[in-house]
């Protein structure tokens, strides 16, 4: 297939074939990361700018490593050191980066739709590294990549997503992607963390974790973000762990080879016990490794497409 998208904004906007193409391309890049010299010249002479308006270590570093393994030049801009504080708008910042002849902007922003807006105003590629509660497409792609590696296929699998769905861009991207690839997706959270009408995305919704995990081939556990609790209506931490936490006891009742995932960083003892996080079902660190290959694939693909504005 020929890749035609200048930007990667979300999995809602990709077809099944496009998602599979990114994953297949990632497989070939994964081989690179096992070599003695982990570098290919695919993006030599290209410049990737990581524009991060939210604190992030793992995603930014992952993109940086991915870009460097493709031989691109990488510039990191974080909100503290930029002119953003002087009141420059996002579009102006983007246009300035474009004027510096960068080729790809990787953006992380707290406002949903920030990447979409930037992409509309720029000719260069925009890769969404997480926008508000909207999407985090590369995280979902690496989750799906890991699942495919572990379980061979996605179609027909039962996948559970547990945790703060309402405020989770990871959940939304995973749901779009998994449903498109033919998985059955169940989500579970306290009702206050279930966003309205999410069943229209094609998922089954429950507030009961045991019901959600029954027959699951894999579970993706999301980080609880208690700092978002404006209403004081979230369950307290221990209550959450008791009712929604993934424990050894819960795991014992599930499929023996169930794949346990977490996008990180983990709150140990809140959404997941340490035994589970470090146990034999956990693929959490493999997810991190696969993130490099997936992001190499994304950067490589979008860099081939020129915008026309």
């Amino acid at each position, binding site marked *: 297939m020929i890749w035609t998208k200048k930007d990667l904004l979300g999995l*809602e906007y990709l077809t099944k074939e496009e998602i599979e193409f990114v994953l297949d391309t990632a497989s070939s890049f994964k081989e690179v990361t096992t070599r003695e010299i982990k570098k290919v010249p695919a993006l030599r002479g290209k410049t990737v700018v990581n524009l991060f308006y939210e604190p992030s270590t793992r995603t930014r570093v992952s993109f940086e490593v991915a870009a460097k393994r493709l031989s691109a030049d990488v510039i990191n801009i974080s909100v503290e050191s930029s002119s953003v504080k002087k009141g420059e*708008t*996002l*579009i102006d910042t983007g246009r300035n980066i474009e004027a510096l002849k960068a080729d790809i902007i990787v953006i992380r*922003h707290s*406002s*949903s*739709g*920030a990447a*979409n*807006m930037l992409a*509309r105003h720029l000719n260069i590629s925009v890769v969404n590294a997480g*926008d*508000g*509660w*909207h*999407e985090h497409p590369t995280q979902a792609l690496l989750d799906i990549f890991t699942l495919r590696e572990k379980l061979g296929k996605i179609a027909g699998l039962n996948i559970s997503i547990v945790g703060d769905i309402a405020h989770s*861009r990871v959940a*939304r991207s995973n749901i779009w992607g998994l449903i498109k690839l033919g998985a059955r997706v169940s989500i579970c959270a306290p009702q206050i963390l279930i*966003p*309205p*009408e*999410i069943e*229209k*995305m094609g998922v089954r919704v429950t507030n009961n974790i045991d019901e959600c995990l029954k027959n699951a081939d894999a579970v993706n556990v999301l980080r609880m973000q208690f700092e978002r609790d404006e209403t004081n209506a979230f369950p307290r931490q221990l209550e959450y762990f008791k009712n929604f936490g993934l424990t050894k006891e819960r795991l014992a009742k599930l499929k023996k080879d169930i794949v346990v995932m977490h996008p990180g960083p983990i709150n140990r003892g809140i959404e997941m016990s340490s035994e589970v996080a470090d146990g034999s079902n956990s693929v959490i660190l493999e997810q991190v490794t696969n993130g490099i290959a997936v992001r190499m694939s994304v950067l490589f693909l979008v860099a081939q497409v020129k915008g026309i504005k």
Partner: protein
Amino acid sequence: MSLLIKNGLVIDPANKIKDILDILIEKNKISKVDKNIKSKAQTIIDARNKIVMPGTIDMHVHLREPGREDKETIFTGTKAALKGGVTSVLAMPNTEPAMDCVNNVKLLKNIIRKDAQCNVLMSAAITKGRLGKELTDFTKLKKEGVLAISDDGASVDDAKIMLEAFYRAKKENLLVLCHCEDKSLSNKGVVNLGFTSTRLGLKGISRESEYKRVGRDIELAAKAKCTVHITHVSVKESVDLIRMAKKKNIKISADTCAHYFSLTEEAVLNYDTNTKINPPLRSAEDVQAIKEGLRDGTIDAIASDHAPHTQNEKDIEFDRAEFGKIGLESGLSISIMELIDKKILDWETLVEKISLNPAKILGIKKGTLGVGQDADIIIVDRDKEFILKKENIVSKSKNSPFIDKKLKGLVECTIFNGEIAYKI
């Protein structure tokens, strides 16, 4: 100055007229409406194959002056109105400062006298600073020429204060125009609460935030036996409540805006900030209910909620952008496309909704083409298609979700106060 409009299809529901007629205008008034008027008028306009109707009356317009002249001024806003066939506007009081005292209204009146290109009617705030705490002086404001009161952009949360407002408004014979929103329920939302807010990862504005406040305001107004007007109705339940109130003979009127019967929340899916409006664009079911409300007479009027904002306030992240869109120059076209072409309303009823009914609600002698009336008349080419181009927008702000869209129904000429005030 005399003016003769010949051979147009004259639509004047007040006089039950829909016929090919001539209209003669002398000394700013309509002096004759008849077939084949023979007159030596100074100007003759051939309106063959065109619709001739009273200039429209827009009950909900933000002209932004005084205070936010970077968004719009009385001059630019009324120029835009004339282009859209609007000859009277009710200016909303959420200026800076708000129209909450006689001095501010005097200031506004002076600007209107100096700059207005069409008829500008004044409204004032219900509470000081529109903060919902302390009532303004309705008696003095009325004396200064204010026709209506509203805290538009906000609703008075305290029911006791709102009830007192209805009692006083009744005494002063002031129209109370209610922006119905319970902010504790809309909860900093930016789009309709539901699948759209979930999909976009944005905070949602619930339907309850509107209709619960509609219900409360109807109840309070009924208690005070005061007339109430519900503005920019957007959800089905509000339409139902207003329909029920009318059946109970409560003195109530309502308006909606062209965007609530032409766009659904799906228009927001690309994060176009020009679709960020309060109340938000709602579901397809709501659009149907609004159309039904217009058809069965529950909704009396169509207003624009013309809300100009600068590019700087719109070309930013969706959650940070201002609420609102401009509408003076596109409203009539959208109404023709959505209501006439889709057979929701006939022409006579549409003219009622955009001219005669607002005049009645506001208690002004306009909205008709009877002999002796003010000559506010528009000539419309109902079949003319055009693309709304940003560079052709007259309003100082360009925040329209209809830019680059094909519209149908073009105002060819606007006659205000007996003079040609706009012509393409």
